[in-house]
C-alpha cells in the first residue's frame, strides 16, 4: 500500500521545526528582545534624560558664567587697586617730618631761655636714612657750656623728654671732653657728639626660607 503524504512539504514530519529549535528560538527571541529593550532603556531613557539635563545645566552655567567672569574681573581690579593703595599708603607712612624734628630739637636746646639747666650749640648736623627701612641716624657734634657735666646730662634728659624721642630706637649716652675757648666768655664747654637713631618707618617683610632642593643621584653618592 502506497502511502501518500498529502501535507505540504514544510508541514511534513521530516521538515517540521522541532520543538527544541522552536524553544530555543523562542528563548533566543526573548533574550534578544530583553537585551535590546535594556539597551533601549539605558540609551534612550537614562542617557537621553541625562543629556537633556546636561543641556539645561550647560545653559544655566552659560547664563551664570557671564556674571562669574564679571566677578573675576572685579576681583582682579580689587586686588590690583588694593596693592596700589597699599603701596601709596606705605610710601605715605614711610616719611618722617624732619621740619618737626628740627623745630622740636631747637626747642629742647633753647630750653625756653633757661641757660642754667644747659646752654648747648652744635657745629653741624648729619641725617642719614636707610633707603629701604627708612631708619634714620642723626649725628650732631656740639658743645655744652660750662664745666659741669650735669648740664650735659640735663641736655640728654631733655632730649629724652622731647616729642621726637618716642620715635628713637637708641641715643648716645651723655659724655664730653672739656674744650675751653680762647675768645669766648665764659670759655669752658664740654665737647661731645649726640647720636640719635630713629626707628624704621617701613617694616621689612620677613625673608622666606629657601625650599630644600631634592638631592640628585650624583649628590646622594
Amino acid at each position, binding site marked *: 500500500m502506497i502511502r501518500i503524504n498529502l501535507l505540504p512539504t514544510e508541514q511534513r514530519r521530516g521538515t517540521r521545526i522541532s520543538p527544541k529549535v522552536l524553544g530555543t528560538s523562542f528563548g533566543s527571541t526573548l533574550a534578544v528582545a530583553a537585551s535590546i529593550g535594556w539597551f533601549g532603556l539605558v540609551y534612550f531613557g537614562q542617557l537621553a534624560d541625562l543629556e537633556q539635563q546636561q543641556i539645561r545645566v550647560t545653559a544655566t552655567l552659560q547664563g551664570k558664567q557671564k556674571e562669574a567672569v564679571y*566677578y573675576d574681573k572685579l576681583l582682579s581690579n580689587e586686588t590690583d587697586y588694593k596693592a596700589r593703595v597699599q603701596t601709596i599708603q606705605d610710601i605715605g607712612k614711610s616719611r618722617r617730618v624732619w621740619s618737626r624734628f628740627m623745630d622740636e630739637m631747637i626747642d629742647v636746646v633753647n630750653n625756653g631761655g633757661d641757660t642754667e639747666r644747659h646752654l648747648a650749640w652744635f657745629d653741624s648736623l648729619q641725617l642719614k636714612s636707610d633707603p629701604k627701612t627708612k631708619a634714620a641716624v642723626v649725628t650732631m657734634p656740639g658743645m655744652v657750656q660750662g664745666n659741669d657735666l650735669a648740664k650735659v646730662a640735663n641736655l640728654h634728659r631733655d632730649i629724652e623728654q622731647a616729642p621726637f624721642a618716642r620715635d628713637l630706637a637708641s641715643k648716645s649716652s651723655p659724655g664730653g671732653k672739656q674744650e675751653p675757648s680762647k675768645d669766648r666768655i665764659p670759655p669752658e664747654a664740654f665737647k661731645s657728639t649726640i647720636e640719635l637713631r630713629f626707628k624704621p618707618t617701613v617694616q621689612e617683610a620677613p625673608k622666606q626660607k629657601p625650599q630644600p632642593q631634592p638631592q640628585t643621584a650624583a649628590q646622594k653618592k
Partner: protein
Amino acid sequence: MAKLNEKQKLMAIGGSAFAICLLAGGGVYWANGLIDEVTQSIKVQDEAIAIAESKIRKIPATEKEVIILRENLAEYVKILPDTQALNEFVTTLNQFATTSGVLTQNFQPGKVAKLDTKTPQKFSKIEYDYDMTATLWQFLKFINLIENYERFISITDYSVSQISGREAEQRDGDQVHSFKVKMETYVYNAKASGQDVEIPNYDKRRDDLKEEIWRRIRTIEIEKYEHRGGRGRRDIFIDPRDHEGKPDGPPVEEQKAIIERFIGDLQKLKDLVSKRRKPDLTIFDIYTIDKDIAEGVDKVEIGAQEVAARQQISASPLRLRWVKEVVEPLAELRSARAMKDTRTHTDPFLSGEEIMQLIGSMTKLAEEGDLEGADQRYESVAQKIIVPLTDPRHDLAIAAKAMHIKVKTAIDFKNLELKIQGFIVNKEGGRSGILVNGSVFEEGEYLSDELMLRKVQEEQVYFVFRGLTLIRTL
C-alpha cells in the same frame, strides 16, 4: 546551501541570539559609560554653577569695594606726580626757595628706580640732591614748605654745616649755613595699570557711596606740620657765648628791665580785656574799654618796634623771653582786636536798641545833673550813630543827636559866668528882673546874642539859651 540539521539550527539560533545579546550588553555598557561621562559633566557643571552663584552673590559687595578703591586711588595718586608734573615740581621747588630765602647752590636729579613693591611697574622713585646756603630759619621754612606740599616728597638725608672765614655771611641778622638735602618723590605710571571693569550705574553708585569713599580717603592723609618761624629762639648752630672784649647790645640787666616794663604794660591791657568780658557792662563801657585797649596796643606795639629796631634785646636767652612774653602776647591782642573789628565792620552802626539805650542813658544822666557823663557817653559812640538817611535807625540817631545838642547846650550854659546878685519878682503884672554881673535885665531882654532872660521866680530863673529853656536855681 546544505540544509542545517537540528543541532546546527540550535547553534545558529542560540549563537545569533547570544551575539545580539552580547551586542546589546555592549551597547548598555557603552551607554553606561556615556551616562557616567554625562553625569560627571553635569556634576562638574553643577559645581561650576555653585561656584558661579557664590561669585554672583559676592558681586554687589565687590562692586562696592571696587568703586570705593577706584575713587580712593584716583585721589591718592594725586599726591604722586606723574612724569609731566615733575617739571612743575622743579618749578615749585624754585618757588619754595624764593619764598623761604634759601640760595640754591646745586640741584641734581638722580636715577629713576623701580619700587620694590607688589606693583613695581606702576611706581618709580626719583631722588634729588639739593645744596643751598640759608639761615637756619630759612632752611626750616624751605623744608617745611616741601613737606607740606600737595605732592608727596620725602626728605631722606640732610646735613648742616657752618660756613666760616670770608664766606661767612648774615641774612636778616642771622648766620648763614651750608645745607645739603637729599629728597625723593614717587612717580605714578597710570599707563601700566590694567583695564578697569565697567560697573553698571557707576556714577549713581559712586554718589551713594560718597561718605564711605570720603571716610577711606581720610585714612591716607599725609602728615603735615606747620613751622612757625624762629619765634625768638636762637640758632643752635651758633656759639651763643659773647666774644671776649665786645659784648653785644646793652647790659643784660637793662635788657631785663625793658622786658619787665613791656610785660607790665601788657598785663594792664590783659586786665582791660578781662574787664571787657564781664557780663554787666553797658554798651558804652564796652566802647570805652575797646578804645583804651586799641590805644594801649598801638602804644606797646610802637615801643616794641623801637626796641627791635635798636636791637636792645641782644642776649640770646632774653630774646626768647622777649618773643614769648612780649611779642607773642602782643600779636594775640592785636589779632583779637582785628577779629573784633571784622565782626563790627559788618554793621558799623549801633543797633536801634542800642541807640534807644543811649538816649535813655543820656537823659537819665542829664536829669541827675551829670552833664559831662551824658556827653562822654555820646562821644564814645559818636562815630557809630552817623546813620544814613535810608537806614530805619536814622530817626533814632537824630533823636540821640538832638539829646546830645541839649546836653552840650546845658554844659555851655553851666559854664557861662552868670553871677546873679539880686532879683525883683513883680507879682502885680509888671516885668520881673535880675541883677547879673552888675547889670539889670528884665524878662524878655537878651543878656547876650544867645541868652535871653525868660522868667524870674522867687526860687529860680528861666533862661532861653540857643533856643533851649534852662533853669538856674537861686
